[in-house]
């Protein structure tokens, strides 16, 4: 029972929000957000409680360990910050609050389930709960063509990718006679399964997961979906579901398929290099800040894949650390975009940011912090994330991937610097109006910046926890 407590609470609160939505008057809708925050907070507490009583549940379908808890806490914190930042956005654009918060809570329940699953059907369930909620969220600007395009694309391509995954699951079951990750591994070790069927199954699952983490060559949907979705939703999409997808990606491949790791390592190797290169070079040409951040998000998925490809405990820990650091800097960046874009998301071109440094020094300073972290300048979380990733890669003798990845990060520096150039070194063309910073957004931004610095100056504790949590990764 403890094992699923956070997800149960999130579902209960999600339903509560939906029901109260029907019963509250328009002027009191703010309370729905507060209920959601309480719900997420209680889920965080529940995740800690279930960590204290860690172990398996439901006949081994659920496994609560450090790894599950790390990702649960991460996605819940991401959800908390998203809700906090959405208060003023929803009111500004006159969007229905109840549905929005409920969908975020359901999506979080799905992601929490993904983090704690140790069985393929549960993983699939979690993935679908999370995905279906986010398909709707992406199209939440109902009267906006771009948002509709976003939702539709996300839904069609996402369903397609899930089908690949499901096909892989079916083949695995056919080959090994089980959907439990440890049982699959045992069957393979005993030599009961293997050969072509298993190879095809692995490849199919790889496609499904790679789509969900927006890794090349399955990244095509990312820029359109991220651009069209409401900005707070994009902040959420690019961090929460991505982190949860990486969680199951690594869990499945390390727990169930370590025997063939020599082979799938090359899939990761190629995908990592492609993601970094395509993401960074495409981002160079963007004029829309949401698209730019979308392409950068592909590149960052590539960095995480580098850590994954190293197939070691420190590699898995580095990937976890990076996903946490990336979450904070990216949420920060997207929340600024959502606030600055103004009603109807009018100001989303990079040039709209001209003179921000002069007119709103505080906001610009925060953006600078996130961008420096995305570049990977020391004393920010982004730097330590990259540092740990490439340390793991060097440790696993992936020297070429390291050098190419690091050179890639120089290319990335160029487009992030371009935003800084526009903000600080160009004069504004027209004075884009800006509302005063609402409390919810200010809190999100300050917390994100503080987290970026915390991870950049005192990364020890988080990395220590991640290293302990990555013990399930078999030693090579």
């Amino acid at each position: 029972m403890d094992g699923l407590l956070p997800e149960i609470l999130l579902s209960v609160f999600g339903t509560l929000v939906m029901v109260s939505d029907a019963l509250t008057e328009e002027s009191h809708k703010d309370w729905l957000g507060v209920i959601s925050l309480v719900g997420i907070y209680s889920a965080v507490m529940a995740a800690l409680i279930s960590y204290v009583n860690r172990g398996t549940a439901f006949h081994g379908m659920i496994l609560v360990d450090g790894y599950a808890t790390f990702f649960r806490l991460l996605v819940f914190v991401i959800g908390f910050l998203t809700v906090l930042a959405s208060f003023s956005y929803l009111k500004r654009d006159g969007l229905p609050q109840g549905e929005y918060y409920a969908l975020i809570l359901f999506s979080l329940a799905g992601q929490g389930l993904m983090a704690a699953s140790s069985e393929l059907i549960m993983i699939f369930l979690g993935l679908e709960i999370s995905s279906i909620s986010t398909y709707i969220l992406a199209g939440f600007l109902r009267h906006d063509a771009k948002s509709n395009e976003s939702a539709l694309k996300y839904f069609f391509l996402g369903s397609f990718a899930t089908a690949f995954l499901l096909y892989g699951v079916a083949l695995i079951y056919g080959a090994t006679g089980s959907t439990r990750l440890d049982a699959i591994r045992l069957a393979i070790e005993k030599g009961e399964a293997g050969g072509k069927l298993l190879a095809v199954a692995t490849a199919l699952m790889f496609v499904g997961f790679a789509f969900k983490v927006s890794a090349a060559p399955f990244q095509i949907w990312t820029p359109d979906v991220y651009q069209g979705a409401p900005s707070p939703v994009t902040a959420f999409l690019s961090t929460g579901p991505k982190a949860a997808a990486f969680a199951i990606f690594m869990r499945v491949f390390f727990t169930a398929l370590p025997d063939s790791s020599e082979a799938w390592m090359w899939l990761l190797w190629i995908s990592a290099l492609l993601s970094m290169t395509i993401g960074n070079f495409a981002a160079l040409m963007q004029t829309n800040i949401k698209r730019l951040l979308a392409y950068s998000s592909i590149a960052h998925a590539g960095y995480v894949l580098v850590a994954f490809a190293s197939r070691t405990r420190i590699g898995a820990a580095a990937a976890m650390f990076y996903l946490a650091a990336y979450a904070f800097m990216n949420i920060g960046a997207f929340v600024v975009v959502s606030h600055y874009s103004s009603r109807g998301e009018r100001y989303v071109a990079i040039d709209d940011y001209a003179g921000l440094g002069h007119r709103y020094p505080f906001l610009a300073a925060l953006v600078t912090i996130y961008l420096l972290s995305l570049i990977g300048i020391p004393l920010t979380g982004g730097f330590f994330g990259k540092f740990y990733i490439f340390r793991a890669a060097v440790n696993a003798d992936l020297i070429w991937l390291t050098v190419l990845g690091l050179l890639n990060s120089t290319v990335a520096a160029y487009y992030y610097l371009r935003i800084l150039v526009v903000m600080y070194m160009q004069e504004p063309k027209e004075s884009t109006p800006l509302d005063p910073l609402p409390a919810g957004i200010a809190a999100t931004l300050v917390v994100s910046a503080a987290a970026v610095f915390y991870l950049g100056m005192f990364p020890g504790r988080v990395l220590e926890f991640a290293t302990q949590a990555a013990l399930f990764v078999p030693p090579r």
Partner: protein
Amino acid sequence: MAALLNVVLVIPLAGFLILLFLPRHDHGLIRVTALFFTLAAFAASLPLATAPATPGFQLETNFSWIDNPPIRYHIGIDGISLWLVLLVTFLMPISVLASWKHIETRVKEFFLFLLLLEVGMIGVFVALDLFLFYVFWEITLVPMYFLIGVWGHERRIYAAVKFFLYTMAGSVLMLAAILWLYNATGTFDFPRMQTLIANGPLTLGPAQELLLFLAFFIAFAIKVPLFPLHTWLPDAHVEAPTAGSILLAAVLLKMGAYGILRFCLTLFPQASRDLAPAVSILAIIGIIYGALVCLVQPNMKKLVAYSSVSHLGFVVLGIFSFTQLGADGAVYQMLNHGVSTGALFLLVGMMYERRHSLEISAYGGVATPAPVLATVFLITSLASAGLPMLNGFVGEFLVLQGTAEADFRYTVLAATGVILAAWYLLWLYQRVFLNETPQEVATHMSDLSGRELATIAALVVMMVWMACCPKFC
């Protein structure tokens, strides 16, 4: 005494934090605060010079910063870094004073970045943990990027981005090499790594050593800059505001030379010796090429920038001569160049504030309306050209003598650089300060104010003192 080094590092940081909370419109208060903290750092750094001259690192502080991987806050100084730290703390108040009137927009941000830059620069010279070194190395990038990009001249954005990307491209390679070394040794600690490599527990194959050497060397060579990696330098120097140019030329370039001396030579001695001929030839090309470009340069600031390419060639040549004299000369030349080229940029900046032009053709006969300016400019030019009794001579002489021990052909070629330097600097002086005084020049070129004189006098005194008492190095 060991705490002192930390104090020197913390004072500018404290200044940075205090400045953050000062009201942004009170420009006077901001300037005075910045000056106070840079002067305090200078005062605190002076006693460092009295540290006994024993081999090895001194005034070490060493405690754990991050447990896993073992990253330590390990700082300390030796005979090389001591003087470079003093160079930084000495030039910082001068840079603040040089920006006193010159910077009128976004004053608070300007001094914030200046103080942050000081922290980074001092940190680079005192860090004894490779990771810590890399952190400080990268941190200097950000404030300098903004100093050039926000307060620079017309093509500032191009110059700032070019500066950032060039340096970063080099330093990521260095990061890869640092990670490789950590993987092989299990430590980032520089003295320990040095012992491990010198005493044999870690043996590098020739190919490995060469690659690691190159990864470090390219990062440093971009910064020095060594021909043909110098192309960012003229842009950055010319477009930067005066304080930025001073610190770029005087300190940031030295970070590269210091890195070569500290890390490349000690960690990869064999590869350094093997590549010495190639590097020396590049250095000589830099010396002659830089000087020739100076001769045809119509822009004063660009001329001084290219003279840096030429002068830093001597530093690299001295280092790679592998002689005691050459190395001493290189270190001495680093300090000399910091003082004299810093002074040249300062003077060019003062002239720009008056005439709003950097073209040599916009001047002429400046000595008549501004005799004091003309005098200090002459002294500085002669120091930069290496006239005996001024500081430049000592460094260049030592380098050439050291090179002569290694290979006399290098000495002959490099010595042409000295002759060319006298030519382009004196010709510059002639065109700017002598001849007829056009009407516009006479109206605009007032002589130095008390503040300006005090700033430049400090540098001129250093030039003479460093020439007369070179024993202190």
